[in-house]
């Protein structure tokens, strides 16, 4: 009984310390020290320990939409988004805070993976607001709390000015109005 009396406050203290501590991401670092430090710095700034994974994902999406200024890409993604290309693009975005859809998708992928979410970069197209043409584009699909969702902060920021959140954790049926992609190549987002 005496042990239990001592154990309770110790446990309470540990819980309190855990609650007061900074955000600890559940995913693995990339191994690139500079990139990992920058990623951790963003996640610690944006995510809250007590928040749900969905709340933290939405906070990261908002941060990317706000922090990155559009600039034409000069990256070579002709071989697809390999791990090396993805990490280079993400590091460049975090350093310069400028880039195009390929860089934003790479940055989202690296941030979400560090948060413990399985994430793939989608190479597809979006439809211009006036419906005039389909434009090559990149965004991500991530597995959050067991389900897959689309996240496209660049499109949300520039094409849905009053509804940026719609393109965070969107399903296939919502996104297909403005985006197209190879359904066989990527996970379905119900």
């Amino acid at each position: 009984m005496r042990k239990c009396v001592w154990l309770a406050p110790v446990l309470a203290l540990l819980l309190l310390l855990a609650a007061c501590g900074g955000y600890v991401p559940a995913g693995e670092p990339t191994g690139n020290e500079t990139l990992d430090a920058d990623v951790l710095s963003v996640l610690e700034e944006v995510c809250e320990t007590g928040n749900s994974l969905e709340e933290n994902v939405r906070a990261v999406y908002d941060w990317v939409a706000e922090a990155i200024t559009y600039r034409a890409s000069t990256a070579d993604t002709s071989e697809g988004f390999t791990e090396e290309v993805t990490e280079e693009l993400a590091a460049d975005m975090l350093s310069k805070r400028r880039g195009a859809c390929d860089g934003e998708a790479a940055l989202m992928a690296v941030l979400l993976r560090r948060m413990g979410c399985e994430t793939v970069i989608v190479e597809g197209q979006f439809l211009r607001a006036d419906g005039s043409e389909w434009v090559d584009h990149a965004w991500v699909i991530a597995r959050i709390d067991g389900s897959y969702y689309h996240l496209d902060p660049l499109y949300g920021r520039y094409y849905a000015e009053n509804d940026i959140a719609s393109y965070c954790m969107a399903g296939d049926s919502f996104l297909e109005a403005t985006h197209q992609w190879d359904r066989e190549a990527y996970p379905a987002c119900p």
Partner: protein
Amino acid sequence: MKKIAALTLCVLLLAGLCACGGDSASFTSDDLSLTVHGSVVTVETPVEEILSLLGQDYDYAEAISCVYEGMDKTFDYADATLYTYPDGDADRLMELYCTGDVQTAKGLGLGASRDDIVKLYGSDCKEAGSVLAYELPVSSPENLPASLYFLLKDGTVEAIAITAEHRAE
């Protein structure tokens, strides 16, 4: 005695006024140009004019823009990259990003320190990532501001860029 007191008061007042107005460092629209390899380049200039100044030794790339109507065009020199935006039949300079022979309108070049920058442009800047940026007020809330920005590495300037005020379509 009264004269001395009045004189002292005047001197103190003048000294106070001088101290208040002492920070002449600032960022203005005059700072939206860079001297690259001896040529002055200003934002919004038609890119053909700039290419005739800097020469034809560049790599060119274009792609349909994710954000703007028309094409994203980049002209990539060994130590400078031009980014353009379409304006009717012309492509104008949206951003010039330099990592080589470059000076700002106030004479700052690569290798300068953060303190050097602040002495010339003041402390009213934005810092994010490795970027220290000075921005002009925008003419419309949807626009992104014209700016001069410095990429810092280990406390010194590694790249300098200017951007035009622009808006996504």
